[in-house]
């Protein structure tokens, strides 16, 4: 970090010291004052077009826009002074001249900055007569996932600047001038850039809408849970928005170290599987007629019997989409055996970078925890897994769909224990099937391609009797005498941190919401 000299200034009576060159609007955030703004966004270049962030600075003859003014030593800034408030009220009045009063049907209502600021400091009534016909333009389909509602647009140009400077595919512009201005799209082009979905999040009003989310839920009905995108090995920070215990959309969660403010469209729409209805809801054990549902005690006891009765080699087939904790506990559970672990990763040729952000792309490795699996000694050698399966006394599967194995390679396996969210046909030969929670239903961590350990949180309850994998594996450890039961994901991570040098010193508290790097990044085999 470059050491810039600090500058002290007073904002609304609060004294703050910030590095030289900081913008006033950012300095105000540190003083605990949010200056209303539309065009300013920390992830985009400054435009200064909305005039919403006007503030009074002592000694300056006119009001200044906080988003394009740098801090200076001894500045005294008044955000809520009579003059600043009057100016902002006028800006809001201009914005509302043609803005439709359609909040009841607008998807943005409840998270709309225009709505918020008008309630906060706007004029309560229009000065136009009720007879004034508001400007009307029909809804335009921008292609991809984006709808444009010109009536609601306040021309902050965030979307234009995102496409110009961040996605670097300049297909949006401001067409026409003055009160006829609107956001135009390059003729013949569609807004189908793989990262274009971000313009919907950037839009401060309901002008750019996601077709996927259209009319699906109101903003105030959503519960937001911090999570990690499971789309690729980048590990973008996201929020899962849930309603009635179903994930209805994914939005980026700012993390300057990983994804800044953005996620790709692939990750954005990669949530439907989290709500799938064909989940395993009860533990199953094999009897003469096949798999039969039972309770946890019976199923765990049966699984422990199998593990205790077997000897020799054990194979773990894991999914790179399960938590690091589960990967670690699975390994510890099989510690008594001559152990080998494998995982299969879906790979797609080529990465899809977001040019404006360094080291951010939709990676070719389409699973969130490949790095975690490699760190814990699992191999990606799927060829080697087949002969290993033949010799294995016990095979433990952790949510792997098993679709990459030929049918006969599993048929010879006698002791198959399957922990999974769904029951693929290949797993029907298992002696015990234990239902586990998916990423939206448990706490855990993933390790991204740069060796950053990041937490995700439980967003909704698991279906039926399904339990988090760390709980199931902990119970099995207790039953087989391989260790003690694990009572929380945090405790599972403690065990991991104690056993693995790469994770030592880390804890859930230290990871927080932003994650932390593992200790030995050079150990991580990064496949680029």
């Amino acid at each position, binding site marked *: 970090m470059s050491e810039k000299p600090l500058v002290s200034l007073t904002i609304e009576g609060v004294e703050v010291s910030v590095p030289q060159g900081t913008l006033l609007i950012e300095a105000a955030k540190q003083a605990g004052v949010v200056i209303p703004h539309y065009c300013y966004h920390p992830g985009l270049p400054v435009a200064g077009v909305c005039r919403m962030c006007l503030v009074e600075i002592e000694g300056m003859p006119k009001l200044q826009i906080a988003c394009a003014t740098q801090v200076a030593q001894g500045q005294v800034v008044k955000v809520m002074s009579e003059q600043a408030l009057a100016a902002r009220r006028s800006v809001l009045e201009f914005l509302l001249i043609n803005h439709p009063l359609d*909040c*009841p*049907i607008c998807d943005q209502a409840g998270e709309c900055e225009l709505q918020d600021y008008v309630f906060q400091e706007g004029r309560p009534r229009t000065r136009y007569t009720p007879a004034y016909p508001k400007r009307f333009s029909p*809804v335009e389909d921008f292609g991809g996932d984006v709808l444009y509602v010109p009536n609601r647009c306040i021309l902050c140009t965030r979307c234009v600047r995102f496409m110009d400077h961040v996605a670097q595919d300049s297909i949006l512009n401001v067409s026409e001038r003055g009160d006829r201005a609107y956001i135009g799209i390059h003729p013949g082009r569609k807004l189908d850039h793989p990262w274009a979905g971000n313009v919907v999040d950037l839009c401060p009003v309901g002008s750019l809408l996601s077709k996927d989310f259209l*009319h699906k839920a*109101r903003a*105030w*009905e959503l519960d937001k849970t911090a999570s990690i995108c499971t789309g690729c090995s980048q590990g973008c920070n996201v929020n899962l928005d849930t309603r009635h215990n179903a994930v209805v959309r994914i939005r980026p969660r700012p993390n300057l170290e990983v994804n800044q403010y953005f996620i790709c469209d692939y990750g954005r729409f990669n949530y439907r599987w989290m709500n799938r209805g064909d989940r395993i809801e009860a533990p199953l054990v094999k009897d003469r007629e096949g798999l039969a549902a039972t309770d946890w005690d019976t199923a765990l006891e049966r699984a422990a019997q199998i593990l205790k009765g077997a000897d020799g080699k054990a194979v773990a087939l894991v999914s790179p989409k399960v938590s690091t904790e589960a990967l670690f506990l699975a390994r510890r559970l099989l510690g008594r055996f001559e152990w080998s672990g494998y995982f299969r990763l879906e790979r797609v040729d080529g990465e899809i970078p977001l040019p404006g952000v360094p080291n951010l792309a939709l990676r070719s490795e389409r699973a969130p925890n490949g790095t975690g699996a490699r760190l814990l000694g699992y191999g990606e050698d799927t060829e080697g897994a087949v002969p290993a399966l033949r010799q294995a006394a016990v095979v433990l599967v952790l949510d792997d769909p098993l679709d990459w194995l030929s049918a006969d390679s599993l048929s010879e396996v006698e002791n198959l224990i399957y922990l999974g969210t769904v029951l693929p046909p290949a797993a029907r030969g298992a002696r015990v099937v234990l239902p586990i929670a998916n990423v939206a239903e448990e706490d855990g961590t993933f390790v991204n391609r740069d060796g950053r350990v990041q937490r995700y949180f439980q967003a909704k309850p698991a279906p039926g009797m399904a339990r988090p994998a760390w709980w199931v594996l902990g119970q099995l450890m207790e039953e087989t005498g391989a260790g003690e039961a694990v009572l929380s994901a945090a405790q599972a991570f403690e065990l991991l941190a104690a056993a693995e040098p790469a994770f030592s010193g880390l804890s859930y508290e230290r990871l927080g919401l932003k994650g932390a790097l593992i200790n030995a990044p050079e150990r991580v085999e990064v496949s680029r």
Partner: protein
Amino acid sequence: MAIGVKVVKRPEREVSYLRATLQGMALTFSHLFRRKVTMEYPEEKSTPEWTISPRWRGTHRMLTDEQGRAKCVACGLCPQICPANCIKLVPGEDEEGHRYPLIYEIDEFRCIFCGYCQEVCPEEAIHVGVHYENSEFERGRFVYDLERLCAQTHPVSTLWDPSDPKGE
């Protein structure tokens, strides 16, 4: 052991019930000539002395536009404000791109008739009605769907007296 029993002689005039009966009859007959306070419900539903208040909050009614469609735009405010959680709403979009309720159901058993849904509605679509006769043969019929709510014809509540909005 003998118990001492005291025999009390009843006063002569109270031995006969005739006197009390006649007193009662006299009272009854005197009521024949007083002003009537009852009403012959259900033949008669209001009298000059008693009419149902225009602010009565009864079972709901959904108002419709000129084309007969529900005015509701499925904004979701009534299920949000409803303290009894009795409104089920699933929004959808019609061919012209208008937002409208795919499912709109009110469980009238669960409803506490507070009138908040009417008060919060930005489109003046859902109303509580000036209506109190709601008998049905099945419990399930008390979940009013959109069609039923639109088909109601009873007057809607004014919720408050326009000339005295604060109720003073």
